């Protein structure tokens, strides 16, 4: 395993970056008082110091506590939405590609049309239409409502290439039924690919949730990474030179995205050995 990580540099970089974040969250959860992530709990606008390593913001939040409490929330939104997206996408993608004909045309057209629409804007309409401020879980559901489009499309095209393989043909001749073939023959062969799709869906869902939050449509009470950035812009922290306020969420978000990105590239390399030659 370790030997393989050495050869697959992208996978290693991804795992290491996300590993650092996990350690940060775990150690933070044990040592940092996350109640300081609420406004009015510490002195305002202190630059990083020994007492407050990440500084404090204008509304009296300890930014270290905000990061410790907020990073898991943001990742949670991403994972819930990403899982729902890939789950629904896998069902639709397998159904469309395996059964073909009308089902395929219908599912493919919906996914294709849905993808040309800018997701964030539809999410904005949904978020605005819902009454009041969202909770973190509602946020995840809202983001998930569009997260299945991309997985559907990519999984469908992968299944199409597998469908005509010899072993599927043999399974069919042996009298296996459609769902059985999908689960016992096609699914195992696509597992690495599904994993790569899952990671990129999680990343896309996190991006969408942060986008909504920066626009002020997120869970106002929760200290997620995106909401932190919303307060940064709300208080014009950049023009005022309070760099530590945005530096902390920026570094964490960049680590999340880079980690997930390199993980996807690494998993792609497992799923598609052709890429190895190119590296």
């Amino acid at each position, binding site marked *: 395993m370790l030997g393989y990580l050495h050869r697959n540099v992208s996978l290693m970089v991804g795992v290491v970056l996300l590993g650092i974040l996990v350690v940060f969250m775990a150690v933070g959860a044990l040592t940092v008082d996350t109640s300081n992530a609420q406004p009015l709990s510490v002195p305002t606008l202190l630059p990083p110091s020994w007492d407050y390593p990440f500084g404090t913001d204008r509304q009296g939040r300890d930014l270290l506590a905000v990061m410790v409490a907020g990073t898991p929330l943001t990742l949670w939104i991403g994972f819930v939405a990403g899982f729902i997206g890939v789950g629904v996408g896998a069902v639709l993608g397998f159904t469309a590609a395996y059964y073909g004909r009308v089902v395929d045309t219908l599912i493919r057209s919906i996914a294709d*049309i849905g*993808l*040309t*629409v*800018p*997701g*964030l*804007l*539809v999410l*904005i*309409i*949904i978020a*605005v*239409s*819902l*009454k009041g401020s969202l909770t973190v879980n509602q946020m995840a559901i809202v983001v998930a409502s569009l997260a299945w489009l991309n997985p559907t499309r990519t999984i469908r095209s992968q299944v199409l290439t597998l469908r005509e393989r010899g072993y599927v043909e043999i399974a069919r001749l042996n009298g296996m039924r459609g769902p059985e073939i999908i689960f016992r023959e096609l699914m195992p062969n696509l597992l690495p690919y599904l994993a790569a799709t899952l990671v990129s869906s999680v990343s896309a869902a996190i*991006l*969408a949730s*942060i*986008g909504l939050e*920066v*626009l*002020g*449509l997120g869970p106002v009470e929760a200290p997620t990474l995106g909401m932190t950035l919303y307060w940064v*812009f709300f208080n014009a922290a*950049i*023009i005022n*030179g309070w*760099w530590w306020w*945005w530096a902390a969420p*920026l570094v964490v*978000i*960049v680590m999340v*995205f*880079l980690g*997930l*990105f*390199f993980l996807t*590239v690494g998993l792609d390399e497992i799923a598609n050995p*052709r*890429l190895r*030659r*190119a590296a």
Partner: protein
Amino acid sequence: MQLLYIVKRFGVFLIIIWLAATLNFFLPKLSGQDPVRTKLLESAALGGYVHAGIEDMVKEYQQKFGLDKPLWRQYLNYVSDVSRGDLNYSIANYPRTVAGMIADALPWTIALLGLTTLFSFAAGTVLGALLAWPGAPRWMRWLMPPLWALHAIPFFLLGLVLMYLFAFQFQWLPIFGGYSAGANPALDWTFALDVLRHAVLPALSIVLVSVGGWALAMRGMMVTTMGEDYVTFAEAKGLRSATIFSRYCIRNAILPQVTGLALALGQILSGAVLVEVIFGYPGIGALLFQAIEENDFFLIQGIVFTVIVALGFATFVLDVIYPWLDPRISYRRA
């Protein structure tokens, strides 16, 4: 066949418009929100008026806007209004129409987004092709890791860093807006230069992030194409390596790139909205943010609808160009 293809694609475009209008109409209805009542109560609360009589006002307005009619009637009215380009009035900036406000903002976004997208697509594609080519200069390989890393972060986060460095620390470029406050919007060089200076940072944050993505995708396609038999055959025929590179490899590898462009437009736009917001760039994104802040429902709806239609149109144009790039399309069943 060619005509049939275009007609079909245009049909898809019309379906997108209809879906956007329908979504725009029904999603808010599902939530049971009443924008008129909300807004009236809000202004009453702000002005400290008594609430007596507000129900009568709500009724009066609902009659005026046709909100007391049955739902299917409202839907037909809405669709016919929208098809004539009537997107209603802005709630927060009353005498102004939504269509008018969008028309003011749209050119900024089209200019910023159109230029940056075309540029990063072209630059990224060329770069990606060169990266896969064994004959490319060695220093190019060092470009790849930073471009990959940049590609993984959202536009607006890079924008944040650029803004801090170049607008706040060094103060080389303006930090906010599309032109200087007090500048005279005339068609002369000073104003053009001013606009350009304001556009540099938003444009850079889009370009630097996008280029890596296009380069990455193109490189992947080039690697696959270069393994094809017809490339080996071209080599065996003794064709010049430049000919193989441009006429055999790029020509084939570029097709999925164009498909990718059509699919990515929505994502690019979503990202650009946030860039406009943080830079206060006077385009659609900033207008949308303003509308969300002011709870201006009709404006939000109008913007979402317009953007979906604009992107649908862009996709349609790409679809029409596509057979010209890939002649197989026009005689295969599209």
